[in-house]
């Protein structure tokens, strides 16, 4: 068992199988709560526990997948580059929106963590929860947070934003498409962006710009906290 399951092939294969099932279920049901990532976790974690496979064996392959987080962040530059005209036109709104989003996000998380008396490591893990995972991991690491808790918080935030976003838009009558797109990207990063894309081209474009801009703002603001 160990000879087979502790090779990198195990972690990579089970991850791809779980993700494929997750994407399939998500596409069939079109329910935001059945997010492909969430389903992947609900397949992989119980499988490892039931088969009594140590996390270390899984991570032999996991590390190889995680290697791609940095290139995946770098190529976000392409989405920003392709939207450069739209950004230039609404530069003030993009900067003001993403700065306000990251400041309010970190402040509200911090206040609520105090309210629930969570310790510093947990607070640091949650502070960057609104931004895309690789950026959030980077911020969490530099503040002394726990990487895995950050990842789970980020993913739940994304799912939460894509479910609640359309509801909030209706209740608070947010009619401007630029404001809608910026809100999705700033509050719920790439997962929210996939929902914004469904709402319209402008929403999708602004959401991808917003997720990068508020990510960078959060990284910069976190430098003040270190």
């Amino acid at each position: 068992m160990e000879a087979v399951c502790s090779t990198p092939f195990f972690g990579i294969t089970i991850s791809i199988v779980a993700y494929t099932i997750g994407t399939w279920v998500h596409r069939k049901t079109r329910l935001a709560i059945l997010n492909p990532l969430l389903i992947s976790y609900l397949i992989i974690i119980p499988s490892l526990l039931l088969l009594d496979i140590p996390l270390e064996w899984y991570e032999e392959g996991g590390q190889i997948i995680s290697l791609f987080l940095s290139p995946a962040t770098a190529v976000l530059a392409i989405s920003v580059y392709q939207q450069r005209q739209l950004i230039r036109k609404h530069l003030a709104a993009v900067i003001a929106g993403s700065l306000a989003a990251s400041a309010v996000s970190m402040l509200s998380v911090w206040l609520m963590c105090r309210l629930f008396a969570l310790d510093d490591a947990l607070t640091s893990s949650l502070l960057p929860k609104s931004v895309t995972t690789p950026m959030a991991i980077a911020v969490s690491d530099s503040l002394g947070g726990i990487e895995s808790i950050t990842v789970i918080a980020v993913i739940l935030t994304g799912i939460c934003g894509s479910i609640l976003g359309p509801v909030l838009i209706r209740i608070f009558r947010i009619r401007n498409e630029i404001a809608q797109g910026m809100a999705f990207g700033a509050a719920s990063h790439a997962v929210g962006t996939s929902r914004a894309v469904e709402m319209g081209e402008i929403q999708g474009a602004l959401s991808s710009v917003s997720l990068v801009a508020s990510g960078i703002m959060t990284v910069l603001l976190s430098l003040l906290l270190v």
Partner: protein
Amino acid sequence: MNILRQIAIIFSICLAGEAVSQLLPFPFPSAISAMLIMLAALASGILKVDHIKQKSDFLLSNMAFFFIPAGVGVMRYFDTVAPIWLPLLVIIIATTVIVFLTTALVVSLVLRLERGEAE
């Protein structure tokens, strides 16, 4: 362009990102340095989107997949998360609503101000 060459271009930008973050006097995520370097390369015309088309499409369209191992690692922290799952969930939902509304409000205000000036 050949897929190996595309990988080489993207990975060398990541490598440059690591180097820049090492040289900076404060902790700055290397992935973000790499993104800014790539943005500069695209803006200056040194790098064309076509040069890295297939590889970047692969990375962007499977973005979520690469987050799987980092999340599975939460197994290590079951004992930490178990007693506080409810506050965690409340914090996540409440702050997401707050950030969504704040952003929409600020952006709408700025756009309205700009429109006011233009008239």
